[in-house]
């Protein structure tokens, strides 16, 4: 378990490192402007201390101190402007990084699909929360991690120049703080990774309950669902609080040491000026030097404080990265063999089998399919028909040989008709045109062919009628036929269908069967997984996936 966790952490940090490398240039500029701000602060505080010395201790008239006054105003200007200029570069970096992350996520989904992994709808949320969590990493942490070293260094050097004792005091307290914080921070990182998983899990619980809200209502399972939601929420609160307790503790350490250091400086300088301390240059202290180091002390710790705030950003980003990166599974070599086949042979497979889980193997009978034919894959429910469909779509790794004629091997020639077809919350027209655009006239013609004419007349806004999520507003049979219309309209030469006539009344089912047959007469190949006996009757070939063969 801990090995797995550390591997995940490694993958996550590697992911972040790679992304950071892409935005190196703007981050470097942001760093330079950060340094400029520190220099401006040093000059500004020096001018204030100098003015105090000159006016209060040496009684010089205020208006005569033009150099110090001018220095004060100029440095203040740069102090205010430098962060503003810095932000421009940070935004540029963040934009670039998030777009890259999105593209990588899309590629990963594509890869996973080819490996046979099912991707749930809720995973779409990965484009939202985790990527949001990355933004503050690039916006703040990435540049802070450099500034946290160099800014205090500049101040330290200045302090040493003024008074070595204070310099040593700051030097000693400097590294100690990050050490303590790191110790605490490691724990926070682990917790934060779990926290990111928790947020995603919380979102999954909601999606699950909401998608099945009708069942919850019908079965009076509201209270059980509520308690699940409340439990998930409570887990979230506890996970968050335990992360925060530690994250805040680490910043409390920082506050403590910095406050104590400031107090230490104040007391040392004060007693030094009073003459109670005489070693190491305490007797050389003046109002200017004493005040200067007092003012510089909080600024020494300020970058550390900012870094500590953004360290939580890193923890959050690691958590997000662990969701976004993924351990590369060794992709099984399931490349389809592409053959130049002079004959009409379109697809064939031999010794085809698939391992769903260790110990669960499904084997398929050797098959040859010719162009322009209707093949029905039948078998008892759960026998592996849908899995075979996924193999043909190239979305499940298999062992054995699967040959595809080259003219069809290139993408763009397969029309897939799913068992639960995909429809969106948009107009009927947009749903038909989801993958390819067709004219209204063409759509209407095919609708009539599929016996959807009465639907057209009854829809209040015709093709513009808006559907709900999952195509709600149409009946189950209507939805299926709309999706089938998509396939037919595409004119593609291979149609792979998963239970095409399931759920339709006889008249429509007949229309489908006839249409599919008609398509084959035009040279389109149809492969359908189905247990419809009438479809089997008109098929040119029937492949039986026998559940007794597999070990189900």
């Amino acid at each position, binding site marked *: 378990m801990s090995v797995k966790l550390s591997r995940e952490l490694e993958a996550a940090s590697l992911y972040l490192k790679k992304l950071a490398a892409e935005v190196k240039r703007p981050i470097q500029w942001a760093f330079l402007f950060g340094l400029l701000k520190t220099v401006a602060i040093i000059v500004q505080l020096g001018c204030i201390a100098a003015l105090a010395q000159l006016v209060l201790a040496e009684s010089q008239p205020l208006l005569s101190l033009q150099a110090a006054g001018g220095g004060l105003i100029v440095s203040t200007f740069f102090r205010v402007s430098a962060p503003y200029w810095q932000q421009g570069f940070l935004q540029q970096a963040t934009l670039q990084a998030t777009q890259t992350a999105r593209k990588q996520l899309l590629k990963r989904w594509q890869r996973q699909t080819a490996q046979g992994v099912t991707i749930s709808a809720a995973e779409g949320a990965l484009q939202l929360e985790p990527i949001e969590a990355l933004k503050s990493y690039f916006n703040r942490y990435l540049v802070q991690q450099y500034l946290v070293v160099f800014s205090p260094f500049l101040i330290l050097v200045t302090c040493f120049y003024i008074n070595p004792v204070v310099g040593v005091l700051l030097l000693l307290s400097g590294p100690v703080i990050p050490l303590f914080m790191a110790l605490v921070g490691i724990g926070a990182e682990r917790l934060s990774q779990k926290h990111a998983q928790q947020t995603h899990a919380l979102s999954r619980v909601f999606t699950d309950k909401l998608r099945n809200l009708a069942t919850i209502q019908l079965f009076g399972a509201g209270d*059980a669902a509520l308690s699940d939601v409340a439990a998930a929420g409570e887990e979230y609160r506890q996970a968050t609080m335990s992360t925060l307790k530690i994250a805040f503790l680490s910043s409390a350490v920082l506050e403590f040491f910095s406050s104590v250091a400031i107090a230490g400086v104040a007391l040392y300088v004060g007693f030094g000026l009073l003459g109670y301390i005489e070693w190491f240059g305490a007797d050389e202290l003046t109002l200017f030097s004493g005040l200067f180091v007092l003012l510089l002390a909080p600024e020494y710790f300020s970058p550390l404080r900012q870094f500590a705030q953004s360290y939580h950003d890193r923890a959050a980003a690691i958590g997000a990265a662990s969701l976004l990166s993924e351990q590369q599974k060794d992709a099984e070599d399931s490349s389809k063999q592409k053959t130049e086949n002079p004959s009409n042979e379109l697809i064939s497979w031999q010794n085809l089998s698939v391992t769903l889980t260790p110990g669960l193997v499904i084997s398929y009978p050797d098959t040859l399919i010719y162009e322009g034919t209707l093949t029905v894959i039948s078998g008892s429910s759960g026998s592996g028909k849908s899995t075979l469909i996924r193999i043909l779509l190239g979305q499940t790794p298999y062992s054995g040989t699967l040959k595809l004629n080259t003219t069809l091997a290139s993408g763009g020639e397969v029309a897939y008709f799913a068992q639960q077809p995909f429809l969106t919350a948009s107009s009927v027209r947009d749903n038909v045109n989801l993958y390819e655009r067709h004219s209204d006239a063409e759509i209407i013609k095919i609708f009539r062919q599929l016996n959807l004419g009465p639907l057209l007349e009854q829809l209040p806004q015709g093709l513009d009628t808006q559907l709900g999520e999952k195509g709600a507003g149409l009946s189950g049979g209507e939805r299926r036929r709309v999706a089938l219309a998509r396939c037919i309209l595409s004119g593609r030469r291979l149609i792979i269908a998963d239970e095409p006539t399931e759920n339709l009344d006889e008249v429509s089912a007949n229309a489908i069967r006839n249409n599919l047959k008609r398509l084959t007469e035009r040279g389109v190949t149809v492969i359908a997984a189905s247990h419809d006996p009438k479809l089997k009757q008109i098929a040119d070939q029937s492949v039986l996936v026998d559940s007794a063969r597999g070990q189900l």
Partner: protein
Amino acid sequence: MKSGDWRLLKPWLKQLGSYRVQLILGIALALATALFGVGLLSLSGWFITASALYIGFDIYTPGGGIRFFAIARTVSRYLERLLNHDLVLKLQAHWRVALFRLLQKTPLHKTLTFRVSDTVQQLTRNLSAMDNLFIRLVIPALTFVLATMLLFVFWWFYNAWLSLVLVLGATGTVYCSWKLAVKTRLLAVKSLRQQKRLRDSAMNFTDSITELSAWGCYDEQSERLLKRSQKLEQFELAQLRHQQKAQRITETIAQAVSLLVLMLAFMQFEQGQIGAAAVVMLTLSALAWQELASELPMQWAGYGNTLAAARSLLATQSAGESGGALPAVTNSSGNNTAITIKLNNLMVWRQGRPIIDKLSVSFKPGCVHWIEGASGIGKSTLAEVLMGFYPADFIQGEITTQPKTDLINEASYLTQETEIFDASVRDNLNPKRLPVAENRYWQVLEQVNLDKKIASLNDKLSTLIGSHGTQLSGGQLRRLALARVLLQDKPVVILDEPFAGIERALVKNILERMVSQLPQKTWIIISHVNMEDICADIPQGQSIIL
């Protein structure tokens, strides 16, 4: 505009009232932290100056004060953060459950047309945005105002002009932050809307990856998704730019205040009105105040987002409340009751279409009633009407039962779409988690011919199924949903396309077994499948063709 904002935020702020003690403690700690910080710096400056220039003053009190401020600041800050974050999380949890409870009251036919992705966004993202109301808006603003007031009084003792400069500076800061907040309102609404669209697209995208890949449209749809996200980034960028401008102005104001205080304090010193140590103390307290002030725009930049989140959450609330009375499902009168249902000239409208036209039929116990017809919404609508889930305004005609009862308690309904939870087989069969004997589960699984399959799984009834568990085929899931309904054991059973994805022989088998083992029930089956094709040996009642 202002009153509209207040109306939106009021329920959230009111909720804070139930945690009054924690709230006041949190604010007090925040104020204490700010004051201790100012105190530490100012007192240190005073002490150093006094040490440099004064002779013979009490060194122990300031020394002790400095030490006290140093430690107290750390402690109060830590406690304050814990306390306030915990409060926010508690509020969040409360609201999450409250909203979900409201959503459950949505009428069934609306539930079936739910835009799920919208609601998911509301419940997670918007609730998190409401955190900001307390932590980033209320607390910093209150702390700033209270601290400024105290500082005002403190400075008044030295020079009224200083206090005046402070007031001007504070007013400028608050004004700037407020202008920023207003500017972000519109941008936040746009941004939230775009987020919704992006989430919609993203979840639709992942839902259909198999199809997209098969159609070779993956890259094209990816591009569309990326474009949506780019638009979102641009809205957020615009918000950030406004924020930075405001921050720059606020910084300038705060620095100007410090410089003015410095100048005025020096002038007073030159006129002999205040001591040198006081000058330094005042200047340093101004510098410390400046830190508080520059935080304000950063925090208030989130105002727009918070308001937009509150607005969309209010919309969810009203949607749930408008649902009106969803009849509560109480227990049935007993599974051995036999119920007859009579429909007389029933007419039902949906979206302006007459879905059911003058239907008269009698459903008798012990018989299977087949409802066939052209594919359309009519059959599912009939089920909704019988269950009492359909709004009465759109129904004409008579529905009577014998014995007289509420069908919602006596009828169980299998929806056309199979709904499976990410949960165990057991929890899927018994979502209400009523106490049920184990052999009852196996009994219904046997009735739908799933017993062997479930028994073969590693964890049997406890096996996790759904999108993150063991995959069952479409037909198997359908049978599981059917078993769920049978487990309810109600006198009237309405099944909408129960045999989707199941082959004929198995259908005949299940049908015969179900009806013979449960002879008292009134069976209403909606199906495209022709009854004659199944040739099941079952007692048939009046069938309807819609």
